[in-house]
């Protein structure tokens, strides 16, 4: 692997890790939220409230997913830990 490719890869991984992190829903919420602000602003509707509302819903959903019961599926084979 060439040094240039390694640098490009490290740069790309840094930004991916920085923006997406370990939960992609946060990045999606920010993009959707900022889009909503821009859209409401374009049609001359008060827009500041939309970004916090959208990320709050996304965080709540993400937390629920992270802490809720795991979806039922077939029991894994082998002894239980």
């Amino acid at each position, binding site marked *: *692997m060439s040094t240039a490719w*390694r*640098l490009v*890869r*490290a740069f790309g991984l*840094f930004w991916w890790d*920085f*923006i997406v*992190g*370990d*939960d992609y829903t*946060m*990045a999606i*919420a*920010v*993009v959707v*939220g*900022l*889009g909503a*602000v*821009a859209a409401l*602003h*374009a049609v001359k509707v008060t*827009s*500041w409230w*939309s*970004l*916090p509302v959208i*990320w*709050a819903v*996304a*965080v*709540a959903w*993400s*937390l629920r997913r*992270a*802490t*809720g019961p795991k979806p039922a599926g077939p029991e894994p084979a082998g002894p239980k830990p």
Partner: protein
Amino acid sequence: MSSAAVFLFLATFLACAVEAVEATTVVVAAGVTRGWRSSLQGVAAGIAVLAVIVAALGPAIASIPLSPLRLVVGALLLVFGLGWLRKAILRASGHKSLHDEDLLYKKHLEAARSAGGAPRHGIVHDGYAFTLACKAVVLEGLEVAFIVVTFGANAHDLPLAAIAAAAAIAVVVAIAFAVKGPLAKVPENTIKFVVGILLTSFGTFWGAEGAGARWPGSDASLAGLIPLVALFAVCAVGVLRGRRSEPAASAPTPAEAVA
């Protein structure tokens, strides 16, 4: 000093102090949680970028469009802040280990080493802290320069506006140094919880402004936004602790977890 000069000084001082507080908050947050070395390197890089911009543009700096810059910096701060806030809520509610990041860092370091990647111990140790601090300094520094140019040009006294801005920055930085020591005594998870709240609040504020929103009360709305984000986080911790099904014997109480 004439009353017009006093007014110019006070108006510039206060406006620049607000911007300096915003930048300093992000830098202190990055420094306390991620380490001072990379954060201060980010500050130095940000100041260097600012110096080049100001030297190259001079008074034309007032024509730089700040909205796209606010949008990009705000979006990045918000996405980073939300990630921290989410983890802080999970930790405080007992759904995540309190000290998992050191383990994660070691895992990434090992993965980078085994992949033959570039060593992490270059000039900048922590890219997160560096980037956060640098962006905050560039964005707020440009706003300070913008204020100095517009206020100073309107009052036909650019040097006085520049002195007022320098005084505001000096006062805010001195206060930040004064609170740095006491902050180091605050438990790590409390700091992380607060930093998540602050980054989310600033990111929401700047990002929405950059996308075109006008906050009620302008910068003063941050004083309402930060407590609201904190309230959301504390409520989420309460709800998640209630949902926790395992016996709470080994889990910290909400106060312990946040602390």
